[in-house]
């Protein structure tokens, strides 16, 4: 399984198993943060690849 999917599934379990609002809020924030990280990594990798593919510099 990919790291991204594994991370989200595991954090989801912590969210569901949380016994109180405080813990659940924390794990939700952890989920939001890792989701945002993976999104930004994908975007930045795309940007780096796109900019490196610059025919003017060939």
């Amino acid at each position: 399984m990919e790291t991204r999917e594994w991370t989200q599934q595991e954090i989801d379990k912590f969210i569901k198993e949380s016994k109180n609002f405080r813990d659940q809020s924390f794990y939700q924030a952890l989920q939001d943060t890792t989701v945002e990280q993976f999104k930004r990594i994908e975007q930045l990798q795309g940007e780096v690849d796109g900019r490196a593919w610059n025919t003017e510099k060939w």
Partner: protein
Amino acid sequence: MKTLVIVAHPKYTESTTQQLFKESVADDENVVWHLITETIDPAKEQALLLQADRIIFQFPLYWYSAPAVLKNWQDKVLTTKFATGSLYSLAGKELGLVVSTGAAQKEFQAGASEQFTMSEILRPYEALANKTKMKYLAPLVVYQFPYLTKIEQQRLFMAYQQYVTNLQFNHFSGQEEWINQRLSQKIEAEQDDKKRLTLQQIQTVLQDNQETLADLTLTASMIKRNEDE
């Protein structure tokens, strides 16, 4: 970082928003929760201010301003001698605002029913920060709290915690690091071995991602710089 939260709410005990916020920072020893009333001892209030690095005015918006209890506090505590004059006792500290309103966010813009943006409405506090040489923080505004879903309330609960305790709450890298530190505390407190191990693995992913993002950001900025030359 020490934070002083000055709570100005005439119907404090009835406010679910305030209860959520109080619960959010309840066990944090670096946060002083200070509910103000009409009775004020300026010297005591000034001493509290001096101990804080971040000062937060927290109030519901009443006619585009704070309730009278906060204005009264400002007029009595922020004396010319203390706040400006030759002392500038608050210089270098941060001033944050946590404001709640019953109107929707989309109404605070030109052409909408409230006509003005929240930044325009809160300008007097920005001016106060400027005059007293404090750093004005982007306010945390809560629109229509009763309509928030459970997950939105949870996000607000965490956003508030960060607003009060995270030095770099307004940068993603600061949010990542704050979450990472809180996760370390969770790992330490976790009794179940299996869960602790999973949390450690999640933390490794979080930290690897932090590093990858920092590297990619640097690479992207270097490529951009080369393109500009």
